[in-house]
């Protein structure tokens, strides 16, 4: 059995076992190592990717359920030699990136938020980020970065 879906706009066919986690498929089959294996149980957000524009914990997402869907990872946001997205720029600009382990997940969560909500409030940003653990920054810089994107300061 193979599963067909889109990764960052490109169609893929995956022959992995049906209940393999999407995270494992992304990292080990497709070489997309941006999403990180953290807790492995949906509590840390390091593996966050977008499925049909919605953040999901890819470690708990069976590849079989990705059939015919559109998956987006941090690798799909900016081309290797292209400009970063406003969210990525803002995180750098505002000191929201330290060790970086959580950042691909944070970027995908904020990308989805800002696609739905043009000018999110700090409360809305905190609500969106409740499932993304960061052990370095204390979150303030990440929230400031997202507020700045909403204000258009990073566009």
């Amino acid at each position: 059995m193979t599963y067909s879906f889109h990764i960052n706009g490109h169609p893929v066919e995956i022959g992995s076992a049906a209940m393999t986690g999407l995270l494992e498929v992304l990292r080990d089959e497709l070489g997309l190592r941006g999403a990180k294996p953290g807790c492995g149980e949906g509590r840390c957000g390091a593996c966050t990717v977008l499925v049909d524009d919605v953040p999901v914990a890819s470690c708990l997402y069976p590849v079989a359920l990705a059939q015919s869907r559109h998956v987006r990872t941090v690798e799909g946001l900016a081309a290797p030699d292209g400009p970063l997205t406003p969210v990525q720029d803002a995180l750098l600009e505002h000191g929201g990136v330290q060790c970086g382990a959580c950042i691909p997940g944070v970027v995908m969560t904020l990308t989805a938020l800002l696609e739905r909500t043009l000018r999110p409030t700090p409360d809305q940003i905190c609500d969106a980020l409740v499932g993304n653990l960061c052990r370095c920054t204390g979150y303030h810089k990440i929230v400031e970065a997202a507020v700045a994107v909403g204000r258009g300061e990073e566009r």
Partner: protein
Amino acid sequence: MTSAAPTSTAAPEVRAVSSLEEASQVLAELGPDGAALAGGTWIMRRPLRSEPWHRVYVPVAGLPGLRELDVRPTSSQAQLGAGLTHTELVAELADGTSVPAALAGLAAAARLSAFPQVRNVATLGGNIAAARVGFRQADLVPALLAAGARLQLGYPDGRADRPVADFLGEAGRPAGEILAGVAVPTPPDRFAGFGRLTVRGAGEYAVVNVAVSVDVDPDGTVRSARVAVGALEPVPRLIPEAAAVLVGRPLDGTSAREAGSAAAAAVDARDDRLAPGWYRRAVLPALLERACAQATSTTGPAWTATDEGEPR
């Protein structure tokens, strides 16, 4: 969403079907080798719990009928498809003005449960089914118990309705049984609330979760009540001793705390890594006061908090 003992250690298969009836027939034929699959957030952690996979999983959340939703205030009950995600429930139930007050506890439970990445895929039916097989913190379940919800179950040869408590309390479930939907009564004088305590400020598993719904006479007297508690015992359940305390008097912080104390006396709270049992019992009165404050916060009766209670 069935819970028969799995028999396979090989890589499991996922078998797609196109209708509830077909899913039921396939699962009935598979018996203990098969299970329904919804969002997968509980089943995907089977290896972490040292549980073997079932041989075959049948995806059900997207099947016709499992995504229906009717929360019109003019209906006598709300109809919620088992395949709706927590996020979808929040979007549909969170509008306090046009949605019956009887659904406020369920809306709060869906909004506060877990994390966005999990709420976006985890379903109503999956939460209920997982609560039968070890997920004692399942947040939607106390809210459904308190709301007097009935489950709509599909079988190869038809359908049946059962109260949530019956589904949770019985030891085994027949192969081929699928949780299709939930009907929640929405009488106009019913008010519902939900509270949960977590080690972090948000998200996470609840140390305790508690839900309440009350039917209130025009003079403010509680005519009937239901209190349900989760995360303490292996399966969430109604606590009639707590509900009895609320009946026959106005709902206020004092009666809520007394009911919480009655609940604490009635439960067998287990120790675990998050908190000892005595602590879980100790916080119940305050949590039930919060849940009752929420129940009265929209269109409900007047509310008087205890000195220690928080403004609603």
